[in-house]
């Protein structure tokens, strides 16, 4: 069965960051610039991704271009785990 990367990321954010109020997260919105997720939150997100998809994100890939929005993570993961970005 295909993995719904974006759906899983959205669900994780809704469950773990109460600031979103359970609503869908704007897929292009920067986590850090919107002030919703700080660097500790990013680490939490990294841990989720690593545990869920079974690989270690190297320090030099802890970059905003890979992780700073739903769209960025989905794009990054689609390369790392070989799932096509649905959008």
């Amino acid at each position, binding site marked *: 069965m295909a993995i719904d990367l974006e759906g899983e990321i959205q669900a994780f954010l809704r469950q773990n960051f109460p600031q979103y109020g359970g609503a869908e997260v704007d897929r292009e919105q920067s986590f850090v610039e919107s*002030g919703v997720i700080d660097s500790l939150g990013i680490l939490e997100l990294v841990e989720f991704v690593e545990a869920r998809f079974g690989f270690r994100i190297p320090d030099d890939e802890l970059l905003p271009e890979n992780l700073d929005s739903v769209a960025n993570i989905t794009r990054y993961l689609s390369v790392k785990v070989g799932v096509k970005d649905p959008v």
Partner: protein
Amino acid sequence: MNAGPTLPELGPDVFEVDAESLIDETVADLREAVQQRLRKRGTVVAVSGGIDSSVVLALCVRAFGPENVLALLMPERESAAETLSLSRQVVDSVGTASVLEDVTDVLEALGCYRHRDEAFRDLIPYYGPGWRAKIVLPPIIGEDSYRVFSVVARSPGGEDVRVRVTTDALRRIVAATNFKQRIRKTIEYYHADRLDFAVAGTPNRLEYELGFFVRNGDGSADVMPIARLYKTQVYQLAAALGLPSEVRARTPTTDTYPLSQDQEEFYFALPYDAMDLALYARGNDRPPASLAAALGVSLDDAVRIYRDIDAKRRVAETLKLPPLTSAGLRALAGERS
């Protein structure tokens, strides 16, 4: 056409103050706060041998006289070797009474060291007796990666190990370590209550504005006389107040972890003078290009520094919130609307 006021060039000169006037003004504010508003006779000041607490102590002595100021020296087993001797030098130089309260036993009883070391061991299984560790952030200059904490641990043989933290371990390390600031604050209030004094806090502007303090720990006080002063200005006051040169020459340290840790690697990302300039530039709406030129860094670095300042300010805002009542929440909503 009116070109508007000329802005001062972004550099160390923006922090130049008339130290004597600033001291007089701060002393007047201290008297107003402590005697008129708080109706107390004097102040208790926790002294660490660092520049901030030394300046606050000296200002309080100017404001209330040495007989109405108590210096508290509260080292613990992981304090730097020079902490106590520098603190004593400062106390001697201002001629006030002091009380030594070693907080090691209290921290031990609370499990401060044990809880923290268990978290270190979760990250580094062989961490044990003789090892020392600290948490650090990567540099901000030239790095586009997220600034994620690592633990640096040094073996008894002097070899360093560096491991990225987990959120669980980091939260436990910070929670356990915060006992240090909170226990010290409890002791400050014990002495303040018995003497009918107020507690003078020691955060400077960098710390207070960017949230480099523990809520209900060193972020708690009745009066904070230097919270509006950049660190560069605190040094100017220290010189004008005649504080010992050893104190003025000491590198700012957190004096919190068993392995020596400076404030730059733990929180601020830049040396204090550069951080002062960055905070000033951000607060005065200077474009990132101006900061880049002043610090000799790239435009990307300056943008990252501003972003880091914005994120820290958001943290500071929540750290400084009063207990939230329903009325308080409505007041906050009113501020936003």
